[in-house]
């Protein structure tokens, strides 16, 4: 990754997968905390990116809503504990790190997330990995 300091103290980085120079942090409001119940999944499109937001107890998780296998929407899958099962072919992913349980090398990108004043924000600039 090439980091380039720029004038307003933000950091740019070069990401091939994201299509070029990206601002590392791009926090965007996603939803009100109270809009989601425990165990609920919500499909969102933020800044053109398909994202599934999941509430588990008091925690929130955000992952790409495209299964790494055939791009099926994980938001339509079953959630059991921290594991979400893709509705198309039952591929199972850990929502905490995006890892595919049957081959850890495969990951659904996850997004940083923060809750502030009852609002959920996503850092859609810094998709991990």
């Amino acid at each position, binding site marked *: 990754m090439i980091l380039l300091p720029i004038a307003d103290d933000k950091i740019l980085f070069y990401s091939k997968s994201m299509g070029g120079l990206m601002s590392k942090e791009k926090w965007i409001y996603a939803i009100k905390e109270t809009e989601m119940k425990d165990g609920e999944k919500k499909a969102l499109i933020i800044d053109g990116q398909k994202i599934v937001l999941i509430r588990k107890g008091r925690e929130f998780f955000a992952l790409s809503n495209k299964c*790494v*296998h055939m791009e099926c929407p994980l938001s339509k899958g079953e959630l059991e504990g921290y594991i979400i099962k893709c509705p198309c*072919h039952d591929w199972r992913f850990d929502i905490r790190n995006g890892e*595919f349980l*049957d081959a850890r090398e495969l990951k659904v990108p996850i997004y940083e997330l923060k809750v502030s004043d009852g609002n959920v924000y996503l850092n859609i600039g810094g998709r991990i990995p």
Partner: protein
Amino acid sequence: MDVQKRKQKLREMFQKVVDPLGYKFSPDEEIVDFLLEQEVILEKEHGHPFCPCQGRTGEREHDMKIVCPCIPFHRTHFDAMKRCWCGLYVHKDVDDPESLIQISLTELEELQKEGKI
């Protein structure tokens, strides 16, 4: 559905899956084209691009493990052969897929007992 387009789409999606697992599409283009075409037909008829060389049983738990690329569910077996069962994918270091033979499950067990893999 345009078969050629779907073949291309499957190729693009599956490439992203098999690459991190250490596999690539077989250099034998003829077999790759044939197998992808079978998968498109199977997907059209049965809803999923199943492996053209493994049989469906009708039990979801079994059948989902033979949807292409099925490498994650048969890793030890396929790694021992340096290819997947149908030969659509081979290990990245394989240039001559003709040289790879299929090893059955019982043969695999024997190799494991003998400590050869």
